[in-house]
């Protein structure tokens, strides 16, 4: 379970502290999917980065399965990201020098090297998302949807407890976007992990269990089942 309590993020500026997030509270249960919507500059990505341990909060705390990681040292944070969090970005951020399969295996390099078991899982997942024939292709040889599918597999290959997606369909056409969302939800259902999606798309948001609206740094639940407090 993810618990976000009194989370805030300020940036220093010549005109004084710039408040991006203020007293954000959020709880997400295992198997639950959450959409966070909001206008540009509302702090959606910042919130996602804080939840994903990519950035550190100014105040408050973030707990995943009871572990508060807002104050963890860099090494532990990296291990947390590697083993318990999966990321899916608007830009796929695949390594251009590596094949699809290698890109999927890259997370295993963070603390060692992939095993045969990891390889098997990567191949299975890629087959599952329809990329069996593309495993040895470079990202530059793939379509936008294929790249994003590969990125999704990379995010899920370590079986993370939580999948964070930042505008995962922002660069895709409607049909491809639909395929990606379906795939993401399918994998989410299979793994019963936590899914948090930041999106501008009402269509994508509507497919999530809970929808939140972030505005001027304040998070409010706006639809579907009750999950936020």
């Amino acid at each position: 379970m993810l618990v976000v309590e009194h989370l805030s993020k300020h940036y220093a500026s010549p005109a004084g502290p710039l408040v991006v997030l203020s007293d954000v509270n959020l709880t997400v249960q295992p198997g639950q999917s959450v959409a966070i919507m909001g206008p540009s500059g509302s702090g959606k990505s910042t919130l996602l980065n804080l939840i994903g341990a990519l950035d550190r909060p100014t105040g408050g705390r973030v707990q995943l399965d009871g572990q508060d990681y807002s104050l963890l040292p860099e090494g532990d944070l990296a291990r947390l990201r590697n083993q318990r969090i999966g990321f899916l970005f608007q830009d796929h951020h695949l390594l251009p020098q590596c094949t699809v399969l290698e890109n999927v295996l890259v997370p295993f390099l963070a603390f060692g090297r992939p095993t045969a078991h990891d390889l098997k899982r990567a191949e299975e997942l890629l087959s599952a998302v329809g990329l069996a024939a593309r495993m040895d292709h470079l990202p530059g040889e793939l379509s936008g949807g294929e790249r994003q599918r590969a990125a999704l597999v990379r995010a899920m290959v370590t079986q993370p407890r939580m999948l964070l997606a930042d505008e995962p369909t922002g660069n895709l056409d409607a049909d491809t976007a639909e395929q990606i969302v379906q795939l993401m939800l399918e994998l989410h259902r299979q793994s019963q992990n936590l899914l948090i999606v930041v999106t501008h798309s009402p269509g994508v948001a509507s497919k999530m269990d809970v929808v939140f609206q972030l505005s001027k740094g304040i998070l409010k639940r706006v639809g579907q089942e009750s999950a936020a407090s």
Partner: protein
Amino acid sequence: MLPTLRHVKDRNSPLPLSTLAWKSFRFWWRAHLAVSIGLVTSVAVLVGALVLGDSLQASLTELALRRLGPVGIVIRGERFLPVDLVEKLTTIPGFAASFRAVVPVLILEGGLRFQKQGMSGQSVVAGQVQVIVCDHRFWKLDSEVPRPTITPSQALINVALARRLAELSAGLAPEPGDRLFLRVDKPEAIPAESLLGNRRDTPVTLSLVLGGIVPSGGMGDFTLQTRQLSPLTVFIPFEALLADGWEGKCNAILLVENAGQSPSEIDAASWLENHLQVDPEVVGLRIEEAPKGYYLITYDGYIFPPWLERIIERRLVGLTYQPVLTYLANKIAFGDRFIPYSLVSGVKLGKDPPFGPLVDISGDPVAEISPGTIVLNDWAAEDLGVKVGEIVRLEFFLPESGGTKLQESAVDLRVAGIVKLDGLAADPLWTPQIPGVTEKESIRDWDVPFEPFHPEWIRTSGPPGPGNDEDYWHRYGTTPKAFIALETARQLWASRFGQTTGFRVAPGPNVSSVDDLRQLLRLSPSEAGLRIETVRAAALQAARGGWTFVFLFLAFSGFVLAAGIILAILFVYLAISQRAGELGTLMALGFTTARLRQLITGELAMTVTLATVAGIAVGALYAAGIIHGLHAWWLPVVGEPLVSLRLRLLTLALGGGLGFVTAGMTVAKCVRDFRAEAPAQLLRAFGPELLTQPDRRTGRAKAAFIAAGIFLLSATMFVVGSWTEGSAQQKAVWFFGSAICLLVAGALIFARCLRRKRGQGRWLLLSPLWGLAWVNIGRSPRRSLATSVIVALAVFLLVAVSVFRLEPSRFLPGQHPGSGGFAFLVQCALPVVEDLSDPQRKADWFAPVVAGRGSQSRAIVDAMRVSSFRVRTGEDASCLNLYRPRQPTLLGVPKPFIDRGGFRLRPWVSCTAEEKQNPWRLLSRSGAGGLRASSTIPAIVDETTALYALGLSPWGDRLLAYVDSSGRQVTLEVVAVLQESIFQGCVLVAEKELLRLYPYLVGYQLFLVELSGPTDAAATSPPWPWGEVRALLEEAFVDYGAQVESTSERLARYAQVQNTYLAIFQSLGSLGLLLGALGLGAVQLRNVFERRREFALLQALGFPRRRLVALLLAESLVLALAGLVLGIIPAGVAVLPSLLAGEGSLPWQWLGLSVALTLFAGLVASVAAVGALFRIPFLQVLRRE
């Protein structure tokens, strides 16, 4: 190739980090290539310098060994050796096992006049020719060339001399049948400057016919001198010299070791030292049994050299002996009566035979002669009419007189006794043999070498007995007419040549025959003054001399090395910033900073490895280029191509290893500095500044503090350099240190300026274009700083080094400060006995030359002042010789020259006020007065020679080891150095010290000529007709193998070599600027890429492209000009003192070149940036944003 995933699918580790690193390395090859440029440059300059050193050493070694042929050891002596010594050597048991050939040769210096066959009256002269007198044994040393056969009247020449003669003869190549007139010095046992020395008949001319040209590559190139210039050699057979006193003489015995028999030539040399016993005759001793019951030891040079006298006295310990000094008195006078040309013996009489007593006319024994008294024989007393107690006057020539005219002196002595001309008093053996005198039947036939000689004084008529000199000679021969105390004789007649003319030895327990005494006086080679020289080992040692240049080259390469490293660091940062997004992704996926460092290290390790390999190849090419440059620039000075490229695996590995470590440390520093920010920021692909140490405010304050500290250090060094009492080089070290500190401080200040954020708007108000350019270069301060510093380093090197360029050619003879006011130098192969510093002797010397010329020549000779120097020929330690000298040529500085002063000298020891005024006086120091030891001899050396050729320094080693004529080690201490002088390459000591070390050194071989009058006002009034002066000098010294050179020509030759060094160092500066241009271009390219959104927007806002181009151009120029300023100001600090002291001139051309190259660098960068700008798909960029 590293494995790809496909190949390792079945293994347990399908994707190790190394594979990712390899794939990343391949994918980002352009970025790695850019990093490689810096690294390759750094590796290449290291490898290049080492290969250059290796090539120099290998070439010098090969040349030296080729010149020696198979000869490994040479036996040489201070005097001529009998050729028979060769046979003596071969009879030593074990000799044949160690040596396979032993060859006697006479190696002389001489002058050569060359006349083409059928062209009588037209000839050319080559001075300083090596003459090798040899026989078939010499030619047998060269197994590849057929042994030449020549008759006694023929000579062979080597290719180098043939070429030289052809040059002098306007292309008429020498051919067999051409005439050669060879001037060589006649060997004389009695030193020419002693009383009985022959001054008139040396040198002699040998008229020879050219028999052929010895091809190069074999013994035709033979020389014992280690210098790169080919010797100009004439070969003549021993038979050609039979008539001139050389019969049976040689001065070097060449030894060839048996391969595999001797462990080393050093061992072979010590074996010789231990096994060779030198017979007394070899060193000129004569031993005979006298009728009066004693054995007599005399010396064929008349007076025993001091070193030989010491050895004899040591050997005679335990025996009774009597040293004698017999001298020629011109007159024994009493009142107006005198006896001419009488021999007087100084002796300490004994009470018992055979050393005494004499018997006086009363029959009483005379067993002692008191100092200040004289004992006459009754013949002389009667002739003079003198009685005991009366005073007689002895008139005689001083024992050491330069020139043909001797100086006379006299002494009054009281007659202490008159002895019977009988018994011991009637022994002609009191006097050793004097060639030309003692063997003559009549006193009229005396062939005395001295002047003035008055044959008219000799009385040949009258009745036999007193008053008839001819009768005395006929009856008593060389029996002295008077005896004085030995100590009195030595006071009067001892000289540098010695103080004893004979040892009379009484038979003793172990000496009962001449053979016993001969056995006793057999000497070891070192006792006999024979030097067993391991010439091959010495040549190999000397061949290391080229490293001096290489070390300098390596030092200056440091600037390019630094530029290469900065460039590499810059490109590493650029590469990292280019991949910020990728690194952010990896962090998001769980990579720690440490893991990312591992990945980057893996990639860069491959870059470093490949760059090292490429750097080795480029370094070898670079060395080849430098060698090509050396040949192009040096050829006119050193005469022949010398160095060829040598690639040794070990050197390449060493250079590559050093380069690898340097490159590795560079990238390790970059990786260590890599500090990943939050992955969220990385994912937004910010610039490189986020990827390295953050620019914290405390860091900025610290940098400012450091900059201030370094600036202060720079100022301090400048002040110390200005006030310190030291040489130009010492001061230069301070000023260069100050300049480098200033460069660092300037760079730090520039960095601070780049980082200042506030107030930048003002720049925009002053000049929108330049203001915006200034603001923009502050976007990536590190990049901007790095490029400007590279340019600054290159500019600094170009300008700072150029001020040391020498231009002596713009001076007329005698005007350059390094000439000391002397216009010409005359260097003779053969010594001139006359001291031409004496005006009368000079006038006499030039009289025959002036006689055939006009009044102008007379005026020139009248205005001419000559300083004569004695020369102990050694090695050339000037910059013209790349070999490391061991014992450079010694010059004896005469007292009048010391008093004259002149030249620019810098003392290396503390001086008295008088010495400060004229540091030449330091040469007169003796004992422990300010010297390191009482036995050291003060010496003056040219500063360049001292520092670079001899490796001396005022604060370190300033001692030089020499071996004197007796084989003893002596130490010279450099007390002062000459700046940029004509004396480069030799060591100057006081003449009296030189003669003390080498008493048998005779005559003068170097003459400095100054001309009073028009020279002093040369700038405004017409100077002397230099061509006429030169012609006069050449004619006057033509018989002495002279090389006449104006002092400005000499200095120009030295300068050309020094300027070549500087040109090579400056080429390093140009290389640095090229790197600067590359760096600048790359930075601008990257900037354009990162700012593509900004440029797209500006275009969308209506900015014309030319405006953007102008902006990019301005940015590049600001960076380049910043580098120019950062480099030129410190360079100015480095060179200002030299400029103010008038020792250099402002290097306008180099300044201009620096500015031009810097602008070129800016332009290159701009072109790169503009090209990138035009390739930006603006619409796409805008749409994406």
